[in-house]
């Protein structure tokens, strides 16, 4: 269990490191690893937010992320497929955010009556329908996709500026989601996650809370999607097909779907494994079946699948959960007293106390998996 203060200090240290990083890292590392890590991290953080605070594991976040790209592409590009409105690149931002929020509201209302596994299946279905929509409806894209979507002049050919934009969005997302969890809305949302019956009998509108949380996550995913289209410059329906949709869930799960920080950690591990796995000394020289079927360059999906399988079999709360358990074990070993030991007995409903809502949500989840609706054994 990490103490609230420690968690903040660590977050600040990491942000400072990320701010100075471009001065040391290579251009490739900044542009292809870190910028993407931050963008994917924000998208994955929306999954974690919905799961950890709302009890909804959503597979529609990648769809919304992609829809932002299609929205920008349609209004900004001036030739090729789509609407080709050719507007000023900045105009794409509000358009994409409005489109994504409205889409998220619609999907949120439709799925607000379900939770858990039903929610997962429903949002996966929405995602795949979205893929076919952009594939078949040539008014907006068609299977060929859109190319030549220019970012605003401010970001054009300036990978470091885009990196800092992604960093700012990440910090805002992280701080924003944690702040939301302490507002009356966020506390009520956690109540809805833990005990919808009690919340309903207390007069809270359960479905409205779910739908609004989903809309909020959709807005953030849309913002990340705008940065992504500026980074990428092109988008086609296959980039929102079922495989990348699952990849985003995998990122969130690898990082640890009950901790917000896990989203960025998961994205870093995912991209790092994709780019650097074959450079690990010793791995390149194994040869034979393992080389052909697992480590070969094109077999990255197998590696990801195996990684996901191992994590789900061993540590369902992901790498973050692993780190927390490790640091816990170390602390116990050296006999340090636990300043938050008094909170151990806290039930999940108590965790909605505004003062420590965020910290103890994470904490309670480590202690009592029964309270965790996201990945929970049946009581």
């Amino acid at each position, binding site marked *: 269990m990490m103490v609230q203060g420690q968690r903040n200090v660590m977050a600040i240290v990491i942000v400072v490191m990320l701010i100075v990083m471009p001065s040391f890292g290579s251009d490739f590392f900044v542009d292809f690893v870190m910028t993407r890590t931050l963008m994917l991290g924000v998208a994955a953080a929306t999954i974690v937010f919905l799961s950890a605070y709302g009890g909804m594991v959503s597979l529609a976040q990648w769809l919304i992320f992609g829809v932002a790209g299609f929205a920008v592409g349609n209004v900004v590009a001036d030739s090729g497929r789509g609407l080709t409105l050719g507007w000023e690149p900045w105009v794409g931002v509000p358009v994409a955010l409005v489109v994504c929020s409205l889409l998220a509201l619609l999907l949120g209302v*439709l799925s607000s009556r379900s939770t858990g596994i*039903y929610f997962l299946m429903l949002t996966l279905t929405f995602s795949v329908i979205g893929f076919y929509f952009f594939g078949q409806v040539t008014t907006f894209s068609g299977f060929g996709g859109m190319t030549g979507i220019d970012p605003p002049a401010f970001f054009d050919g300036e990978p470091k500026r885009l990196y800092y934009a992604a960093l700012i969005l990440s910090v805002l997302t992280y701080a924003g989601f944690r702040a939301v969890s302490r507002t009356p809305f966020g506390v009520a949302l956690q109540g809805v996650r833990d005990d919808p019956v009690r919340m309903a009998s207390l007069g809270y509108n359960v479905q409205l809370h779910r739908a609004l949380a989903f809309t909020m996550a959709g807005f953030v995913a849309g913002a990340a999607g705008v940065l992504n289209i500026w980074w990428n410059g092109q988008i086609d329906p296959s980039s929102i097909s079922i495989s990348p949709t699952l990849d985003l869930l995998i990122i969130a799960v690898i990082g640890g779907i009950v901790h917000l920080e896990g989203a960025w950690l998961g994205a870093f591990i995912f991209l790092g494994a994709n780019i650097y796995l074959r450079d690990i000394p010793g791995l390149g020289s194994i040869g034979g079946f393992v080389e052909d079927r697992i480590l070969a360059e094109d077999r990255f999906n197998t590696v990801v699948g195996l990684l996901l399988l191992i994590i789900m079999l061993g540590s369902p709360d992901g790498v973050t959960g692993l780190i927390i358990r490790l640091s816990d074990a170390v602390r116990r070993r050296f006999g340090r007293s636990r300043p938050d030991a008094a909170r151990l007995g806290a039930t999940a409903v108590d965790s909605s106390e505004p003062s420590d809502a965020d910290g103890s949500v994470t904490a309670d989840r480590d202690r009592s998996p029964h309270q965790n609706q996201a990945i929970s054994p049946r009581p």
Partner: protein
Amino acid sequence: MVTDSPTDVAETSTTDVAEIKFGALHLNSMQLRMLRVIPTWIAGILIGFAVVWVLFLADRSFTTATSAGSAIAEPGEFIVTFLNGLTLAGLLFVVASGFTLIFGLMRTVNMAHGAFFLLAAYIAIEIQQNMVGKTRNIDPSDVSPLDWFVPALVAATIVATLGVLMQQLFLRWNQGQDMRQAIITVAVAVILADQMLVEFGALAQTMVWPEQVVHFFEIFGERYATSRLFMLGISLVVGAALWIWLNRTRMGMVIRAGVDDQDMVRALGINVAVVFAVAFFVGSFLAGLGGAMGASFAGANVGTDGQWLLNSLVVVIIGGLGSVKGAAAGSLLYGMSIAFAPAYLPLDYTYYSIILTFVILAVVLAVRPYGLFGRAE
């Protein structure tokens, strides 16, 4: 499903409140009741309009410019479209009933169902090629019924064994943690899809129907492929066998009881672990059999797995999770919408047929949140 049960109670408690005051919005109980029937009314109007449209309004040349005339004007076209929907529904049912059987009993959402479908399709194609002795340009005249049924059944059995293996290794000990199980099956699906890409390549392959069913017959002046009716026949046999198994045998009785109350079944001294393994075998077998049928009907390719996972999901969400009856109803509705949309939507809008799927889902969920035959648990 336990995590869901509070929600349902929440449903009743929120919908039974006498009035709602939300900002400037004031609704008394009468108005609320009116509000609740609105989705049903919308559903009724949509269905009514679709029926009138197909029967009378659709017209090739007139302003609507559909690719098929109305049912009154061109009965042949209508029958063909209807048969297309019915035969597709048969295949959908075979695949989705396996999915829903596993979910109904174990609360395990098998995200690898589509991957099992595709794997069986590839294996069946491979076996058929070996039996016929040709790897390409297999002519239907080379294929005897045995050359179709043996590959299909062997492939389905292999995939079913794989399914049981997956269940025993990865799912048996964390029974009840439904989200964890779903993500484990996602991992298996991702690995399988990638390995199939290496093994079978990225080119579309097809299985060949036996010679006896590859011809056409006349119906209302239209030609129709016998192979599609053959597929429907297999689906009906599967459906009947499933019905007899679930309703007339001891094992089926145990499974139905397990769907209702697993703890009670266990308390009565029945070995639930064996029942689970059998259900997983049958569920995966159905995915595999569907895969062989699908490979003959539309071919197997990269991405077919995702497509059939989607098909299974749509069918069971419409029909209600865990209900075989629901799988039949969902297959019919979804199959018909896939068949009728391209024929009867105005030509400029035929590519909007995917939105029709979404509308059906949305309407069903608005009227019956747990699907047509689903039970709030």
